[in-house]
């Protein structure tokens, strides 16, 4: 399993195929550096960390959208509002199955990350 994990990360970063712009490459890099350590590169999660496919259920409601940005791992990520908005849109598109969603904007991210959740497990919609 660990070999598969490493190869997946290498493909993620080392292979430029499928990366359509410099922004996309930066967003994928941001995912590897800030998300993949806990959620894993295939976003499958583990016994203690949720899979990122679960964003489907959250992105469909206002409370769920707010939760996705206010959860501490997202709100406190060392990224600008613009990069964080692009990263979250990438996560929802890449790993979720929601057919359509309204993309996060930097303004929305800035407003929501200013009030991070203190107890994300109990606050989950």
């Amino acid at each position: 399993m660990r070999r598969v994990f490493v190869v997946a990360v290498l493909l993620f970063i080392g292979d430029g195929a499928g990366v359509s712009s410099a922004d996309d490459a930066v967003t994928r890099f941001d995912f590897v550096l800030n998300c993949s350590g806990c959620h894993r590169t295939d976003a499958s999660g583990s016994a203690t960390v949720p899979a990122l496919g679960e964003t489907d259920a959250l992105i469909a409601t206002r409370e769920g959208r707010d939760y996705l940005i206010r959860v501490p791992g997202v709100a406190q990520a060392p990224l600008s509002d613009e990069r964080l908005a692009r990263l979250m849109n990438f996560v929802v598109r890449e790993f979720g199955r929601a057919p359509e969603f309204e993309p996060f904007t930097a303004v929305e991210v800035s407003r929501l990350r200013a009030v991070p959740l203190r107890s994300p497990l109990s606050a989950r919609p």
Partner: protein
Amino acid sequence: MSGFDRWVEGSTRALARRLSRRSLLRRVGVALAGAAAFPVLPVARAAGEGDAARAAAPPETIDGPAGDPSRCEYWRHCAIDGFLCSCCGGSQTACPPGTEMSPISWVGTCRNPLDGKDYVIVYNDCCGRGFCGRCFCNRNEGDRPIYHPYRSNDINWCGGASTQVYHCSTALLAGLALEAQPEK
């Protein structure tokens, strides 16, 4: 003598009259060197493209401790906090026998001293046996306080494994970083 033979003989003599032997040798030498520099076979071209794709591999032929995976100073160990699996029966990329690699990991970047580039390094802990006790390192570059759990190496990264007993740490390479991690 056939017509072809006479044509070849005439051409050769004409060439010999126009060119000195040194000049001929020089031109032949340039042609040979040029052929070596520009591979024409498709297999050779494909191999060259493969080399480019593998360009993310950093140089590992580093003299001194920065090139030794069993030392804290090893370049991939810039954020290490724990026992080196290289000293515990494993390696910088593999867990010792009888342990399990945790599926979750601390991810950061380290700068390779030879090429000066930053690379993504994934620290996966090996779990399932008690403390290794050998080669303890605590460099912590880019480490954050525990209230930033995704970038704190003080929590038990065996949390995602079937057992939470920590044994040692690996340092896996995950490719070229587009920039150094922001905490540095």
